[in-house]
C-alpha cells in the first residue's frame, strides 16, 4: 500500500464515494429509524438485496477494468431465468436448469466477447444490441408471460439460511471470494488489469490479450445467469423483463466503489461498498418511508454527489 496516505482507512482512500455515502447513510438511517433499520430482519433482507446486485456488479468490475461495460446483463437475467424455469418444467431438475441458464449466459457472453475483443467494436453498442436480442428472445419465447409452476426448489433456495446467513448472501460471498482469488491470485486477474491499463505491455509479454478481454464478458454473462436462478427463486417465477435496468445499478456500484473506466484502475472490494451504498440507500428510504418521488431524486443525487466527491481534481496556479 502506498505510504503517503496511510492515515485514511482503505475504503476512504480507494472508494471515497461509496465509503462516505455508506457511512453517512447508515448513520442517518440508524439514527432516524428507531432501531428498525438495524434490526436483524432488515439486515437479512438488505443483505440479500445487496447480494443479488453483487452477483452482477462483481463481474462487472472485471468488465470495467478492461475499459468496457456490459449493458446486456439485465436482459440476460430475464432470458436465463426463463430458460431455467422452462428447463425445470421440462423435467431437467435443478442442476439441469442451472446448467441451461449457465449455457445461455456462456453463449451470450461469448458473442459479446468475440465482437468486442476480436471485432474491435465498442462495448456499449455491442452489449446494447445483445441486450435487445436477449430481452426480445425472453419476451418472444414467453409471450411476455412469466413462467411458473416449476416447484419450490428455487424459492426455497432463495429463502434458505446457512446458519445465520441467507443463502444469496452466502452465494455472493462465495462469488466474491472466487473472483477475489481470480483477480488477485491468478495470472488471469493481472492480465485483466493489463487489458485496461496497458495492452502494449501484454503484447510485449506475449499474452493473448484478446482472449482475456473476451473472457471478462463471458464471466459477466455467466454470473448474470447464476443470479437469474436466484432471482427466479426470489420471485417464484421467471419473468422475462424482471431484471431490466439492473446493469445500470451494477455499473454505478462499480464506479462508486472506486473502479475507473480508464486504465484498469479498480478495486473489487470497493464494488461491495458501492453495492452496499446503493442497497442501503434504497432500503433505508423504504424503511423510513420517504415519499416515493423523492426516492427517485435521491438515487440520482447519490450517484452524482458520490462521483463528484470521488473525483480528484488538480490545483491551478497561473490563471
Amino acid at each position, binding site marked *: *500500500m*502506498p*505510504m503517503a496516505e496511510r492515515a485514511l482507512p482503505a475504503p476512504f482512500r480507494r472508494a471515497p464515494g461509496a465509503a462516505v455515502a455508506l457511512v453517512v447513510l447508515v448513520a442517518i438511517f440508524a439514527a432516524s429509524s428507531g432501531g428498525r433499520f438495524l434490526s436483524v430482519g432488515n439486515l437479512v433482507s438488505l443483505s440479500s438485496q445487496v447480494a443479488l446486485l453483487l452477483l452482477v456488479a462483481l463481474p462487472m468490475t472485471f468488465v470495467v477494468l478492461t475499459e468496457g461495460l456490459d449493458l446486456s446483463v439485465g436482459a440476460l437475467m430475464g432470458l436465463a431465468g426463463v430458460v431455467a424455469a422452462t428447463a425445470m418444467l421440462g423435467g431437467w431438475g435443478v442442476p439441469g436448469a442451472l446448467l441451461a441458464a449457465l449455457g445461455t449466459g456462456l453463449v451470450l457472453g461469448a458473442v459479446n466477447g468475440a465482437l468486442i475483443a476480436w471485432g474491435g467494436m465498442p462495448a456499449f453498442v455491442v452489449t446494447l444490441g445483445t441486450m435487445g436480442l436477449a430481452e426480445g428472445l425472453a419476451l418472444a419465447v414467453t409471450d411476455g408471460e412469466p413462467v411458473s409452476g416449476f416447484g419450490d426448489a428455487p424459492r426455497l433456495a432463495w429463502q434458505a439460511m446457512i446458519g445465520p446467513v441467507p443463502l444469496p448472501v452466502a452465494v455472493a460471498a462465495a462469488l466474491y471470494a472466487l473472483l477475489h*482469488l481470480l483477480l488477485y*491470485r*491468478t*495470472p488471469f486477474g*493481472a*492480465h485483466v*488489469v*493489463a487489458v*485496461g*491499463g*496497458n495492452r*502494449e*505491455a*501484454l*503484447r*510485449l*509479454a*506475449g*499474452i493473448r490479450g484478446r482472449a482475456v478481454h473476451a473472457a471478462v464478458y463471458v464471466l459477466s454473462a455467466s454470473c448474470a445467469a447464476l443470479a437469474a436462478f436466484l432471482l427466479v427463486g426470489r420471485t417464484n417465477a421467471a419473468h422475462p423483463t424482471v431484471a431490466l435496468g439492473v446493469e445500470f445499478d451494477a455499473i454505478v456500484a462499480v464506479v462508486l466503489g472506486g473502479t475507473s473506466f480508464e*486504465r*484498469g*484502475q*479498480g478495486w473489487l472490494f470497493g464494488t461491495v461498498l458501492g453495492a452496499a451504498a446503493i442497497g442501503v440507500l434504497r432500503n433505508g428510504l423504504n424503511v423510513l418511508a420517504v415519499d416515493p418521488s423523492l426516492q427517485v431524486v435521491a438515487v440520482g443525487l447519490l450517484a452524482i454527489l458520490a462521483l463528484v466527491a470521488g473525483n480528484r481534481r488538480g490545483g*491551478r*496556479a*497561473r*490563471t
Partner: protein
Amino acid sequence: MNGPAPLMALRGVGKSFPGVRALDGVDLEVFAGEVHVILGQNGAGKSTLIRILGGACRPDEGHVEADGRRVAFASPAMAARMGVAVIHQELTAVPHLDLARNIFLGREAAFRNRLGLLDLGAMRAAARRALDAVGLRADVRTEAAALDVAGQQLLEIAKALSQDSRVLVMDEPTASLSVPEAERLFAIIRRLRGEGHGIVYISHRMPEVKALGDRITVMRDGRRVALLRRGEAGADALVAMMVGRAVALSRPPAQTPGAVLLEAEGLSAPGIADASIRLRAGEVVGLAGLVGSGRTELLRALFGAERGAGAVRLGGRPLPADPVRAAAAGLGLVPEDRKRQGLALGRPVRDNLLSASFRRLARRGVAWPARLEREARSLVSRLSIRTAGTGVRVGTLSGGNQQKCVFGRWLSAEARILLLDEPTRGVDVAAKAEIHATIRARAGSGCAVLLVSSELPELIHLCDRAYVLRDGRIVGELAGAALTEAAVLRLAVAQEAQAHAHG
C-alpha cells in the same frame, strides 16, 4: 573473430521505410561483460536498431545472431525468451498493477501453487530480490503508477533482469532521471556488466558515454561511422563524428530582429523551473536540450496548455494560461505527438487544416463550405501537401504531409508566434526541406518562431538564436557564430562535459 562468440550480433542489417533508408549495412556485436554505447543524433537509425534487437521488426537485409547462431525474432516475447530485453523510453508498466505482478507479467505460471493460485509470498519475495538487484526500495505491493519515472525505469530493468536476460538494451534511460538517480543506475549497470551481462546503451550524454562505455558505436544517417574502444576519442571528437562534416547546412544571414512579441518571465510548470525567454518578430529561436529537459513542457506552458506560476506577456500585456486565449492572441502550437495531440486522424485533411480558423473563416457564424474548401486548397498548394483531396482522412497521409497539415492550421489561423515541437520528426527528407522553408518564410514575414528539435543540425541551420535547457532550467543562450552544435551539446549534456571538452 577470435575469442568467445558475442551474446548478440547484427550482421549487415539494413531496413527501409517508405522514403527513408533507416539502417544501411549495420554491424553490431554485444559481448558478455561489456557496455556497448550507441551514439548518434536523432534520425541516425538508433530507434530502428532497437526495434530489430527487441524483435519488434525484422531487418530487410542481413540477420541477427544470438550466441553465434542465426535467429529470427517473430515477436518481442520471442526476443525476450532468447534473452534480449529492451527497456523502452516510453515505459510499459501496467499502472494499476503492483510491482510484483508487473515484474512477472506473463510469467506468473512459475509461482502457481498446488491449487493453481499464485503463491503471492513467493512472487513477492522474488520481486523483492529483483527490485533489490536494481536498488529500488519501494514496497512490491505498490502499484506501478505510484512510482516516479526513475522508479518505473528501475522497475523495467528489474523486470528484464528477472527473466534472465543476458542482453539489456537501454534507450536513453537517464533522459528523465535526476543526477543521483542516474548515478544509482550507473552503479547497477556496472554491476550487471560485472556479472556478465551485455548492455546496449543508447545515449547522447557525453559524461555517461565516458563513464560507462566499453565500446562505442557512432551512427549517422543509418550507418555505423565509427567503432571505438573506451578512451579512443574525446567528447569533442565524438560530437564531431555524430555531427559529421562541419555544418553542411548554411544559415541564412541574420535578420535584424523586430519588436519583442512574446516574453516569459520566471515561468514554472511541471517539468520546468523559472524559465525566462523572449521572442522577437522575424526571428527563429531554438530551444535545445536533451529529451526530458523540459522543452515540450515549456512550449505547452507558453501556450497555456499547462498551468504554472510566472508571467507570460504578449506585446507587453499579460496572457492568461488558456489555449483558447493563446490561439486567439496569435500563438500557434505544433505539438510533439502528432497523432495524439496534433491531428484528428479520422477527420478529413480540410478540418485538420482549419481547426484553428473555423471561427476566423466564418461570416456571422456561418462557415461556408466553399470558403473552407478554398482556404484548405490554398493551404494544400502553399505547403505542397500531397493528398488526393481535402476530403481525404488525414490519417491516410504520410507523416510529412500530416505534419504539414498541423502547420497549415496555424498559417490559416494567421498565427504570429509559432511554437514548434519537433516539427520534422518522422518526416521524410523532401518534406523536411519544405517545412524548413516554411519556417524561414514565416519568420521572414514577421512571425516569431520558437523551435524545439532534437536534431542539432536542423536547429543550427534554422535558428538565429537558441536557448539551451537542462533539467527544466534554461542554462544558456547562444546566438550568431556562438551557436554551434558542439556548443549546444556542451551546455545540454552537463558541466563535466564542458570541463572534459577543455581537458
